[in-house]
């Protein structure tokens, strides 16, 4: 019982620390920028035509899913354990009689509602602002955004427990490697989370008017396979992170 209380306390403490952090304030900037953008841009979305649905879908794919989602995941995913490593307070956490897997899951479950809440909230807001097309896009793309968010959060937790400068590595991955891989021909892009998210979005959006991508550069796989791949990435990243966190001696904390 005391272990459970300790775990809940840790979840709550981590949640509050992450919520009232500079990252929260800063991550609101791109979300606000996108909101202002849609307010200015939504005249293009009026009428509910295939063309306007295509334009809004491309915005969601290349600005929201490719930038805002990973940024929200970086802000909380790496900061949960990475912040403690940076401040060297992880040591005080690890000397408490709470098993390491529980510490890891406490951090993960403190992060997930924040990242998911912010991403889903922003997604809902943009779809509301986009009107009729937005309502359609919300129902179609919600699973893709959800799976992408949890996959990014898990992967960035893995980075946080494995690397000292995890924020740097996570941002290089999200903003550089994924973009480079996304623009390469062939199947090399299948190592990127973004590929599976985009595949899910194409699978849902093409029947409603989203333009099919050029097969030479992007050949989407089915929605079911993409969802399974993202769920797999989430689970594998979490398991590997758990094993690393369980076994690793953090010599940089002292």
């Amino acid at each position, binding site marked *: 019982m005391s272990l459970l209380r300790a775990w809940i306390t840790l979840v709550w403490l981590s949640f509050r620390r992450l919520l009232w*952090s*500079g*990252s929260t*304030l*800063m*991550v609101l*900037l*791109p979300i606000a*920028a*996108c909101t202002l*953008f849609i307010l*200015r*841009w939504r*005249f*293009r979305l009026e009428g509910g035509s295939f063309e306007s649905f295509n*334009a809004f879908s491309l*915005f969601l794919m*290349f*600005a929201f899913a490719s*930038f*805002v989602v990973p*940024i929200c995941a*970086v*802000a909380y995913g*790496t*900061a949960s354990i*990475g*912040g403690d490593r*940076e401040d060297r307070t992880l040591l005080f956490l690890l000397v408490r009689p709470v098993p390491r897997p529980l510490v890891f899951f406490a951090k993960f479950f403190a992060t997930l509602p924040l990242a998911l809440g912010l991403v889903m909230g922003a997604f809902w807001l943009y779809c509301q602002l986009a009107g009729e097309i937005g309502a359609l896009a919300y129902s179609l793309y919600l699973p893709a955004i959800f799976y992408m968010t949890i996959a990014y959060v898990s992967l960035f937790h893995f980075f946080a427990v494995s*690397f*000292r*400068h995890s*924020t*740097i*590595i996570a*941002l*290089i991955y999200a*903003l*550089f490697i994924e973009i480079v891989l996304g623009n390469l021909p062939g199947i090399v892009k299948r190592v990127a989370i973004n590929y599976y998210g985009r595949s899910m979005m194409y699978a849902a959006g093409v029947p409603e008017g989203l333009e099919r991508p050029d097969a030479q550069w992007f050949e989407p796989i089915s929605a079911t396979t993409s969802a399974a791949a993202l769920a797999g990435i989430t689970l594998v990243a979490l398991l590997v992170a758990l094993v690393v966190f369980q076994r690793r001696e953090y010599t940089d904390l002292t």
Partner: protein
Amino acid sequence: MGINNAHYYGWQGKLHSPWISTLSIVRVALLQVFRRKSYWVVIGLGVFQFLSFWIVIYAITQARLPANAQRDLYEVFGFSPSPEPGEENGYIAFMQQQSVVVMILLAFSGSLLVGSDFRMKSLPFYLSRRIDRRHYIVGKLLAVSAIVSLLTTVPALLLFLEYGMFTPSVGYWRENWGIAVSVLAYGAVLCAVLSILIVTLSAYLQRVAPIAITWSSLFVLLIRLASYLQDATDNNYWYLLDPWRDMRLVGKLCFGVFLEQEEHDIAAWAAVILAGVCAVCLVLLVRRVRAVDIVE
């Protein structure tokens, strides 16, 4: 024990100007950045790009092809060593391609070079010496500028030198001296704007994550939004949201080279925007750099 008995005595030599200390700040900052292994991953990306251009120039000049064939080959690689009047030169294109590397490196260096001084409360140690906030700010701006130059201006000038060296005479350098000036002008704009922005952001945000999020929002997201808005409204002024384009336009303004009339029209606005943003940032930076935190 009196201080005289302890044999303490004042400095007898001639004191140098405290402005010399800014060079020490630059030296220490560069050492801090270059001793981090993780930063070398990012620097390596920039070096890789530079080496790619270097090899392309070497291979094409040594192939002894006709001038037209050489020009076509350079175009394949997106490089133009001797552009026609009004055409973009390849060295500036190279500097623009380095922008992603510069952006990532600065996002992480900001916290290390400036943010940690505030977070670890080491700023008073700087300001307890003969240097004051002017010297500190100039030192940090120069440090960031040095990093930017090492990734953009210096390699671009090296490529310019390389191309000239593989030609039979010094004619290439003599005929295209303007390219070197345009590289320097663009480099100066990059250094000034990027250093002021990152030092101010780092002084306020201090940690890596918020700095990197804000920095990437400025330099990645705004480019995409600007492009969407321009596409939707057909109004080129939306391009002014893109800071890289603003810097490029101001660089061109310094040298008077424009590709299109539309670019010329918005270049002055780009200069006004950058000047305004830099002025506001400098005011905020001066207010932030204090020896003692007034309210804890």
